[in-house]
């Protein structure tokens, strides 16, 4: 059944700071960067910050994993006259695109008129996400995980990747192809952190951090902020750009995934998956669409194998067929035609978290907006539908389909 809120809201403004290599954003403060992103998103939408009256966060309103946003503090900083909606999704980056659904909830409920979703990340030495699990104080739950020396999310996900290799014969070549194929999309992007084309030899020379994963299978550690403004369709038509229409949006997941790699109790086939099948099925049901209808896919790529497993969970290929799909070139973008390769759907035309920047998923939302506006740097020809995803991580993970106005 079609989603009751289908095509009723739209993302109308996007804003971002420069992207900095981890720690290099200092002496800027995190609220300085968040403010720049929010003000740029307002300017992009053609509205004033004084029009914004809603906050729809994710990651428990986290700014990174150790700082927190506070709505009152942002209002005080930015001079917002009042706020009538302030809500967040729980857990971590898995909610990034689902935050647009929270914004939609606030807008359709007439709690607010313009909702901002923001993420800022500043990884000073004591705030590195890459070691955040290992650095956390032991608690009764993580005392069943931490002693194993799985110190970071990449180490945890290497165990999922290994199971996928065991069950389906997936090889590290497929992980390498994901990194190389999306690297090819950053050469022309001024803000991207990694722009040089990547060869198989360079990929294979990358140090093995948690076998089967190499350093280049891990996403970038970057600083910066990204904000987007969501509003109702009637208001969206008065904004500066063509609206990026919210066509479907879901967050959550099934118990078999649950806390996922913080738990390691997932039965097959969930263990060697991205945990996205539940929200994928929901957005397909909400929209009546399927993977083949997408013109571009902005897939959360904190670690390369999780792209492969999302391709399976969304149905771009069969379960277990991710490696063959990827190795046949089907996630690549062909700049000459503005389309996919070998019948595939281009993935991460912005270079993703692996190559452009990692702001806990928000760069994927920005790229989805630019693709359906028709203003992307690596524009997909006649792009009508863009899929964006958040996670794989502890629930909720999330899925979003944006539609050209």
């Amino acid at each position, binding site marked *: 059944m079609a989603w009751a809120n289908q095509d009723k809201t739209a993302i109308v403004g996007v804003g971002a700071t420069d992207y900095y290599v981890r720690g290099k954003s200092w002496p800027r403060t995190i609220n300085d960067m968040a403010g720049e992103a929010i003000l740029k998103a307002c300017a992009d939408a053609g509205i004033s910050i004084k029009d914004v009256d809603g906050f729809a966060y994710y990651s428990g309103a986290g700014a990174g994993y150790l700082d927190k946003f506070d709505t009152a503090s942002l209002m005080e900083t930015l001079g917002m006259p009042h706020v009538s909606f302030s809500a967040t999704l729980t857990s971590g980056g898995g909610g990034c695109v689902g935050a647009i659904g929270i914004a939609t909830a606030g807008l359709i409920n007439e709690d607010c008129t313009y909702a901002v979703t923001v993420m800022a990340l500043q990884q000073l030495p004591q705030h590195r996400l890459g070691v955040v699990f290992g650095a956390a104080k032991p608690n009764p739950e993580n005392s069943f995980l*931490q*002693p*194993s020396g799985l110190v970071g999310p990449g180490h945890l996900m290497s*165990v999922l990747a290994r199971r996928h290799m065991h069950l389906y014969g997936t090889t590290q*070549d497929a992980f390498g192809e994901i990194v190389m194929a999306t690297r090819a999309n950053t050469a022309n992007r001024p803000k991207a952190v990694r722009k040089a084309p990547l060869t198989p030899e360079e990929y*294979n020379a990358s140090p093995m951090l948690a076998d089967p994963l190499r350093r280049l299978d891990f996403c970038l550690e970057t600083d910066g902020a990204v904000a987007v403004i969501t509003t109702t369709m009637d208001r969206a038509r008065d904004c500066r750009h063509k609206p990026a229409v919210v066509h479907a949006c879901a967050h959550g997941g099934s118990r078999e995934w649950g806390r996922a790699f913080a738990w390691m*109790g997932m039965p097959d086939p969930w263990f060697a998956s991205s945990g996205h099948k539940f929200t994928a099925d929901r957005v397909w049901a909400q929209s009546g669409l399927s993977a083949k209808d997408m013109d571009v896919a902005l897939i959360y790529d904190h670690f390369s194998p999780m792209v492969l497993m999302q391709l399976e969970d969304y149905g771009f290929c069969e379960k277990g067929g991710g490696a063959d799909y990827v190795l046949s070139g089907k996630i690549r973008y062909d700049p000459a035609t503005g389309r996919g390769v070998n019948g595939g759907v281009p993935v991460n035309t912005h270079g993703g978290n692996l190559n452009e920047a990692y702001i806990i998923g928000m760069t994927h939302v920005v790229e989805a907006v630019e693709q359906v506006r028709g203003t992307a740097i690596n524009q997909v020809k006649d792009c009508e539908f863009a899929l964006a995803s958040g996670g794989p991580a502890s629930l909720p993970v999330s899925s979003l389909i944006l539609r050209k106005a």
Partner: protein
Amino acid sequence: MMTAPIKYGPARVLPGEQISITTNPDTEPFWEAAKARRLTACQCAKCGNFRMPPSPYCPDCSSNEKAWPTLPGTGTVFSFAVCNKNPVTGEDYVYVPVVVDLDGAPGARLVANLTGCNGEDVAVGMKVTVEWTPISEGWVLANFRKI
């Protein structure tokens, strides 16, 4: 473009003195048993299903009654990674985090280190037996050794 497998050499458990844990009343029976070198897992006393880590309610029947049966101490490698740096000191140190399906406790897993073989020889499906590692504050950790 695949490269030759890396020769890691012997897989070691991480040094116990750098590991600490905490407990709560739900999890403490597991750790008290480990102190006595007895491997257990949280079992629902009503429906018999296992769950790990121990939690207040059985996710299948919602009972809060728990049993702590003595398990054989053996298990099967469900998945693993091979790591090569001590996460605390950064020194070269080959260790293998494993996810182990516990014999006698269907659905219950432990995440631990594996020793008794080379890092490059670990495989999914390998049979293992518990190896007790003293850690800080007098607690004991269940690690595993290749059978």
